[in-house]
């Protein structure tokens, strides 16, 4: 079975839409953004999604005919709904189809749980409704209910969390479920809201930059956290042909392979063992030689440690012929559990437009130099990588259709 991607959606600092995010990465003015909706004392740039929870609730009703019952929703749940509602705008009809949903997140409903905890411990009492969506399943179940309301038969749904590689892992699970024959479509997604918990956590690790982050730059000094929700719809080629000859496909997904670094809870090993194994396994599974890769979408968080070991991994795999590569996180920020699917969607869009996305603010060479301007060039195979806390490394290879 060949697995094809037939729709994608990104909700990011650029708002809604893969195209909008793509265009902004390619050429928008780079600003150092402060959050409008998250209240935090930590003074760092954050790449926040430009809608309040109330605005998202209203947009779902007005623009997507999704009328949610009135209750407390986590930002995680609202963003999950927004990306899937947007996905269905361009996807094949799910009505009467067997659908698998694999969601991914690191924070779950922490944006409301932290308010609960504050109210409980500081004020002495808190509304229980604030923690009803604490567990990631709340957002996933809401999405499943929405798909069912559109006529889909949701045959299986789950939520996974492998830190910053979470939604890449979700893509792999979706592929496995399609290959098992249990489902017609797999919706693989990732979501992470900005919240005090995450911002303070990363701040305590001392890896947040005070400026726009600079992936792979010799003077990089940490990452920018971003907010994101992204989703893709995958299906087997035979099923797609059986539905219609006119279903547009964005790319073929050849492989999604994971390996554990087994080195440290937050740092990647100097030899980049996990990332190298994942990339090697992805190439082997895809049946593609390293030399055939047209472009690598790097994890490229802009922390000294990540970019150093990721460069090592790329050299381990590609030797002296490292293909053009870049990290798009200078624009989107690091969207954590959403980043895998978000960057998969950007990579698929690169194949469609035959245009590479750059790391535009790269200045000072260290080891490997990323692409710095958007270039129109023939692209056949793209590798996109995600690495996370806990040592999980996932590498995905997609092909032009």
């Amino acid at each position, binding site marked *: 079975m060949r697995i094809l991607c037939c729709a994608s959606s990104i909700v990011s600092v650029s708002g809604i839409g893969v195209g909008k995010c793509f265009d902004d990465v390619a050429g928008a003015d780079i600003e150092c953004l402060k959050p409008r909706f998250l209240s935090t004392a930590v003074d760092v740039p954050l790449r926040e999604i430009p809608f309040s929870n109330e605005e998202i609730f209203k947009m779902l009703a007005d623009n997507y005919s999704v009328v949610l019952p009135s209750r407390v929703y986590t930002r995680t749940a609202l963003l999950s709904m927004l990306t899937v509602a947007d996905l269905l705008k361009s996807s094949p009809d799910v009505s009467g189809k067997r659908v698998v949903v694999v969601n991914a997140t690191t924070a779950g409903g922490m944006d409301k749980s932290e308010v609960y905890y504050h109210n409980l411990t500081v004020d002495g009492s808190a509304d229980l409704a604030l923690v009803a969506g604490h*567990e*990631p*399943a709340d957002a996933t179940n809401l999405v499943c209910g929405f798909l069912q309301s559109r006529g889909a038969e949701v045959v299986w749904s789950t939520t996974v969390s492998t830190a910053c590689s979470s939604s890449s892992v979700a893509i792999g699970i979706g592929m*496995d479920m399609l290959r098992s024959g249990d489902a017609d479509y797999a919706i693989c997604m990732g979501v992470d809201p900005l919240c005090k*918990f995450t911002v303070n956590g990363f701040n305590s690790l001392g890896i947040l930059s005070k400026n726009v982050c600079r992936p792979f730059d010799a003077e990089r000094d940490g990452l920018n956290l971003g907010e994101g929700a992204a989703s893709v719809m995958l299906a087997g080629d035979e099923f797609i042909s059986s539905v219609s000859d006119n279903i547009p496909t964005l790319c073929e997904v050849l492989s999604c392979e994971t390996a554990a670094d087994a080195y440290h809870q937050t740092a990647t090993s100097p030899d980049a063992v996990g990332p190298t194994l994942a990339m090697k396994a992805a190439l082997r599974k895809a049946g593609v030689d390293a030399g055939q890769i047209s472009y690598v979408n790097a994890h490229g968080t802009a922390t000294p440690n990540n970019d150093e070991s990721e460069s090592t991994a790329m050299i381990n795999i590609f030797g002296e012929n490292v293909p053009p590569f870049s990290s798009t996180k200078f624009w989107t920020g690091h969207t954590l559990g959403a980043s895998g699917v978000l960057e998969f969607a950007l990579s698929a869009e690169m194949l469609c437009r035959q245009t590479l996305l750059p790391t535009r603010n790269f200045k000072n060479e260290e080891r490997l130099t990323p692409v710095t301007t958007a270039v129109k060039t023939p692209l056949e195979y793209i590798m996109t990588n995600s690495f996370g*806390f806990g040592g999980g490394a996932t590498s995905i290879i997609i092909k032009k259709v």
Partner: protein
Amino acid sequence: MSCYIKKVATVSPIGDLGENVNLNSFAASACVADEPDYKTVITNANLRRRMNRMLKMGTYAALKCMGDDSVSLLLTATSLGSISDTEKMLDTIYTSDETLGNPTAFIQSTFNTLAGNIAQIKSIHIPNITFVNRGNTVANALKYAQVKLADDIESILFVSSDEKTELSESVLSQFDLSADGKYGEGASAMILSSEKTESLAEIVYSQCGVDLQTALTEMELSTDDVEILDSKRWCGEYGTSQAFGVALAAKMMEFGMFDGKSHVAIEHRYGPDKSVVILKKS
């Protein structure tokens, strides 16, 4: 789709099911895990010192179950993750008005820390996935195990873990998630294999969103064939309590404790989530 349970190990209110457990010995009121001497199994003192109870219980059960076996996939499952460190992190944020950090609590609170610790301790580079889907987590992970064993994976280490804290117990009880108001905790590990040899039981069904009757109908089984195991009186209620039920059922099958029944069903109802796992004598 063959998925056999080869071995189990648990940290639970009635101890380690991998050892000989006397089910009559348990005073069914506490629902607090009977924690072992961790340092005999988790020998890395640096890692052990930083671990909260969710991590210690899960790591212990996993290492105990795995022994010297090699596996090709690690699946972990949790409902609330490292909830004690999550609370610690939140406490630091609010008591310091976001001026102090608590990097250890933050790192330990990440859902997949258990998987990362196991990989690090065993120096294994196999893929790991952490399932975090509340009451459906265990049935999700076991279904995925079935799919992977039917494909190209030979053996899997599965481990679930959840700890309870004063706050988590208070919140769960306000949501009225337990039929008898007893909230428990624990970790359950299993080696799953596509090979039947020397197995305790076979997982023949693992589905979410179904009740018991639907599951039995789908499997063409009647209640004459199936023992319905109420395992929660031994482990208490928590998001991943179903894994304890599966491990217990497998051990009870090994000891021939279900007279005349070919199958055992473990149903899990947890708030809006419901799932059923069915084991068959192997």
